């Protein structure tokens, strides 16, 4: 296979807080090829959004980011200056945020906001940009696209706004699109629609996609690769089949037990939960962050955790098989 489009090694994000440092993201590694979809799953506060903002270079001023390697198609994202990052953002990497209600500027028309990135990054005229905007609005399933250009965000529903956000992210035909829980704020009925649309468009334009979500049902349908994140670490990464078919890390198995599957989960049976809460990440974090909630925790979990696995399917656990043998067959 070619060189990956995006390659991240040992990405670490620290946030200074009153009374110490919050080690929000610790040593993340992943690769993403062109056209591939990587799903990062994990619960709230596990550092998924911070990771995506770190890639975009959009972390707050006081947040510290470091990495051994953060390479996007030959550009080192760590050392790239503001000008270089601006050229990438919106042009070659774009992002869809989770709050469609507040992510559009209330003062400008949909048309102005759609064409902005294209006019900034590509040498096109206003007319061509508007034509492209209409084309994409139609593509994301918005009717009367032409007349929408002169509308303002407050005149659109949440679902429509998120479609606009998607169209906006696609304007420059980026090579990488980062979607941070793009459907969280929407009605359940629209969620599946929007995701399907995003996925199909990604395929059509051969874009790589990082989809951040906590909806495992979505992941199972669209992901090529899955990265399971817990308390700032990737506890398990691999292809979708590997992670879903043979989840190695106890946390991944716990997550999978939390979702009911039609046909598999017995009616009336109790849904799985993961007892306990996410540990504080302020101060030094040692060993496995999941050990306080893990049914298979050992004293060794406090020490350095080895990386195990073969090929692309990797996980971090003291148990050579992630203690899979100690459990019943996963749901």
């Amino acid at each position, binding site marked *: 296979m070619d060189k990956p489009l995006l390659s991240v090694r040992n990405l670490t994000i620290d946030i200074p807080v009153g009374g110490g440092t919050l080690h929000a993201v610790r040593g993340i590694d992943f690769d993403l090829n062109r056209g591939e979809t990587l799903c990062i799953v994990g619960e709230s506060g596990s550092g998924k959004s911070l990771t995506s903002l770190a890639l975009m270079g*959009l972390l707050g001023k006081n947040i510290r980011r470091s990495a051994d390697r953060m390479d996007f198609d030959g550009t080192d994202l760590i050392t790239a200056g503001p000008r270089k990052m*601006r050229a990438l953002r919106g042009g070659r990497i774009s992002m869809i945020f989770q709050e469609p209600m507040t*992510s*559009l*500027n*209330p*003062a400008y028309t949909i048309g102005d906001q759609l064409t902005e*990135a294209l006019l*900034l990054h590509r040498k096109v005229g206003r007319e061509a940009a508007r034509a492209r905007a209409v084309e994409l609005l139609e593509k994301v399933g918005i009717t009367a696209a032409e007349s929408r250009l002169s509308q303002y965000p*407050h005149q659109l529903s949440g679902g429509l706004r998120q479609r606009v956000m998607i169209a906006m992210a696609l304007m420059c035909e980026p090579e990488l699109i980062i979607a941070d829980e793009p459907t969280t704020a929407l009605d359940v009925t629209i969620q599946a629609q929007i995701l399907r649309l995003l996925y199909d468009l990604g395929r059509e334009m051969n874009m790589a996609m990082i989809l951040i979500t906590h909806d495992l049902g979505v992941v199972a349908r669209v992901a090529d690769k899955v990265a399971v994140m817990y308390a700032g670490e990737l506890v398990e990464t691999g292809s979708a089949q590997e992670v879903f078919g043979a989840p190695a890390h106890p946390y991944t198995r716990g997550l999978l037990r939390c979702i009911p599957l039609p046909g598999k989960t017995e009616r009336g049976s109790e849904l799985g939960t993961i007892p306990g809460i996410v540990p504080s990440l302020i101060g030094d974090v040692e060993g496995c962050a999941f050990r306080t909630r893990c049914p298979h925790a050992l004293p060794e979990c406090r020490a350095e955790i080895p990386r195990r696995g073969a090929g692309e399917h990797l996980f971090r656990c003291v148990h050579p098989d992630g203690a899979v043998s100690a459990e019943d067959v996963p749901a």
Partner: protein
Amino acid sequence: MLTFILKRLGLAVLVALTVSFISFVLLFLAGDPAAALAGETASGEDIEAIRRLYGFDRPMLVQYVDWLYSAVRGDFGESYYFRLPVASLIAERLSVTMTLGVCGITFALLTAVPLGVAAAIRPNSIIDRVALFLSVAGQAMPSFWFGLILIVVFAIQLGWLPPSGASSPAHFIMPTIVLGYYAMPAIMRLTRAGMLEVLSSDYIRTARAKGAPEGRVLFRHALRNAIIPVVSLAAVQMGFMLGGSIVVESIFALHGAGYLAWESIARNDLPTVQALILVFSMFYIVFTFLADVLNAWLDPRMRSS
């Protein structure tokens, strides 16, 4: 947009009528105008004669309609003290006041908005501290004191500027600074607070994610939204400057409308006071209306509400 403007215009007219009625009635509550006009030594018959002469014996509503009808045509009657038509008296004074007010608000906006934006971009930086110091000082210093200090330094010690009068543009420099500095702190703080809030909003992150240059993010995406409350405040400040610059006009001996108001109240010059109240309220109403229109242009959500 047009319906919005018409609605606001209708509202403005209603407010203007209400204000005119209140100002008319209030002056009658202040005392018997006929007695005041006649003076302390006048006899009962003299007062009665004056009452009939000026029409104070008619029902109040009749007097109001009569007064309003003339006022709309620009006839505010004759000043009791100056024995001149009130309209020409005010018109003559108004040019000074308007020059001062326009200069004052321009000075205030030109210092407050850039300072507020700069302070919001780097909160707690040196420039933020300087802005905070200037605004606290501006709020704490009484206008008359600041005005006198300026006169002592720039007119008396350095001799750069004339201390009083209104005969050249140079005469307006110090009054402009005093008046503008009075309005600056509130505008600066509102700009700073608005920018801070807007800069942390999701749509600014979106703009940055599009790769928009920082200047474009700040001025096109952020300032347009942050400036909306500032427009409303500036309109009120502007109205205040045109009507309430009495102190500044007195210090620098600028004989403007504010000074005339003070003189007329002291002399119980009823027609002049009434006319001035009406004119000053009209300024407020006109500027509020203009601010509403400007805000509707800035913020499309206001047009539909």
